[in-house]
């Protein structure tokens, strides 16, 4: 885990204003004296209350200073808990858009309260009940008329550049954020984007010209500024925020035609089979009584919703950014709670990245699931990706105590398709082989054949 039961979080080192720590399993944030005037203004200007009323910032309560971890503590606060921390390289296009728009709305509100965002990192935004929420209470500082926006570059690197690349070139550029922890460098984005992106007013300014200005001024002699720093009026800053908002809204990506978005069980099950499968999933989940569920290969979240509609915190993981996009839009459209769609390639899960490999955690380090749903998935891992059944069992049993898994035999049309152009080297891939491999890690609690199908659903519990 990223921190022991007590102690400072490894990722919380960049900002001298304060840090996050655990004490007796509870999450706190220490605010240092250096940040005191900014914190006081956040609280007294009405900005904090306004942000809370709108649901844009995690709430917090001030607690005993006795919990201070060092001498420079000014306040200790206990922030609202976010059940799962996701990362931008796991977000679909509209989640990026939501996080970017939230950041800009907060910046506008802050400027109206004589404050400004000193950070515009995408990692400061998380998703709770489908909506983006800002989690860094210490990102606000006092605004002085005339100052530019210090986090402008960060906003462009974290939001404008990756979203432009996703919208103009390929949606998979979102994954590039795992390689660039402080956002996509603007010169890199500018070199990849097509020439026509210059015709988009916002991209021409915030990305292309911005990138050129960076390279033009990067070698400025600090002792001899090229020109005296010019003041930027508050209204000009607000205009830039408005324009960034238009730019972000103008970036589009349509998910309708991706490979998997239409894949669903539709052609694997008839109506009765699908209804029976849903009923079995419901029964098995009820038996296990999980508080959190991770649905791997969730597609657009048909089975995830069996859990989330019961109030179980559910993450719907899928490798296809299109399926995740459609799922997320559905969540927002219906104002659904307890469901978080995210992108994940199970064959190459999110790694630990950043300083000392400790800043952003791997999938394993963040796992909080009580139950894994692995429906119509095993053939993709075992046959599509050559992972032996025993290793799949070990992998899943590391993640959660309970597993609801569907075995898809070789007679199934989907497996036949996977094997159509290759030699069948999967001699163990049988129902017996599956049960043998999985009972090394799990006990079979229940299992049942799905109606009108060769597939079988299992409820397993870790040994």
């Amino acid at each position, binding site marked *: 885990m990223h921190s022991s039961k007590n102690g400072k979080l490894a990722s919380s080192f960049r900002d001298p204003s304060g840090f996050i720590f655990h004490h007796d399993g509870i999450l706190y944030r220490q605010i240092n004296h250096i940040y005191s005037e900014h914190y006081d203004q956040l609280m007294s200007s009405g900005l904090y209350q306004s942000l809370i009323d709108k649901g844009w910032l995690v709430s917090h309560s001030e607690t005993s200073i006795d919990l201070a971890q060092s001498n420079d503590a000014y306040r200790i606060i206990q922030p609202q808990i976010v059940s799962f921390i996701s990362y931008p390289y796991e977000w679909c296009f509209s989640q990026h858009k939501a996080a970017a728009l939230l950041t800009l709305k907060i910046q506008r509100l802050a400027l109206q309260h004589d404050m400004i965002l000193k950070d515009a990192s995408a990692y400061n935004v998380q998703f709770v009940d489908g909506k983006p929420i800002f989690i860094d209470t210490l990102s606000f500082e006092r605004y002085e008329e005339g100052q530019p926006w210090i986090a*402008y570059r960060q906003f462009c690197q974290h939001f404008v550049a990756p979203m432009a690349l996703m919208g103009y070139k390929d949606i998979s550029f979102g994954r590039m954020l795992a390689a660039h922890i402080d956002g996509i460098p603007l010169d890199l984005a500018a070199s990849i984007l097509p020439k026509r992106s210059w015709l988009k007013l916002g991209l021409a*300014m915030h990305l292309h*010209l911005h990138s*050129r200005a960076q*390279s033009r001024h990067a070698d400025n002699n*600090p002792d001899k500024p090229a020109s005296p720093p010019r003041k930027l009026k508050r209204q000009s800053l607000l205009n830039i925020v*408005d324009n960034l908002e238009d730019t972000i809204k103008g970036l589009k990506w349509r998910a309708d035609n991706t490979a998997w978005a239409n894949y669903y069980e539709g052609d694997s099950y008839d109506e009765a089979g699908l209804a029976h499968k849903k009923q079995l999933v419901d029964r098995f989940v009820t038996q296990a009584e999980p508080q959190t569920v991770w649905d791997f290969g969730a597609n657009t979240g048909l089975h995830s919703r069996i859990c989330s509609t019961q109030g179980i915190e559910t993450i719907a993981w899928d490798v296809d950014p299109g399926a995740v996009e459609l799922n997320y839009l559905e969540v927002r459209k219906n104002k659904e709670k307890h469901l978080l769609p995210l992108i994940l390639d199970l064959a190459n899960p999110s790694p630990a990245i950043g300083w000392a490999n400790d800043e952003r955690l791997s999938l394993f380090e963040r796992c909080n699931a009580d139950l894994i749903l692995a429906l119509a998935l095993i053939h993709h891992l075992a046959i599509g990706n050559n992972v032996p059944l025993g290793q799949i069992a070990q992998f899943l049993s590391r993640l959660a105590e309970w597993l609801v898994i569907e075995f898809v035999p070789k007679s199934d049309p989907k497996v036949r398709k996977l094997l159509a152009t290759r030699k069948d080297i999967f001699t163990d891939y049988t129902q017996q082989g599956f049960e043998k491999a999985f009972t090394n890690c799990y006990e079979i609690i229940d299992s049942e054949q799905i109606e009108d199908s060769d597939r079988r659903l299992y409820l397993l519990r870790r040994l």
Partner: protein
Amino acid sequence: MSKNKTFFTLWVAVIVLLMVSMPNGYASAYLDPGSGSLIIQVVIAGLVGIAVTVKFFWNNILLMLGFKKRSNRLSDDELVQDDPIQDA
């Protein structure tokens, strides 16, 4: 020439001018203090100021003439909050 076309031509002219005045180059990015990102904000503020004024009048004209209608699709603001009217 329509107003739209005039605006577009002017915009292209401005961009080309800026492209020429700010050629692409290599810099010591590993030592970059980010001054370019601060300086460019003044330039962008100027450009955006003009764009805001033009857009304000243009949108009003389109709304008045009935060329612009509210969409039934999920709006981008609804990604952030349930009720966009509460927006700041």
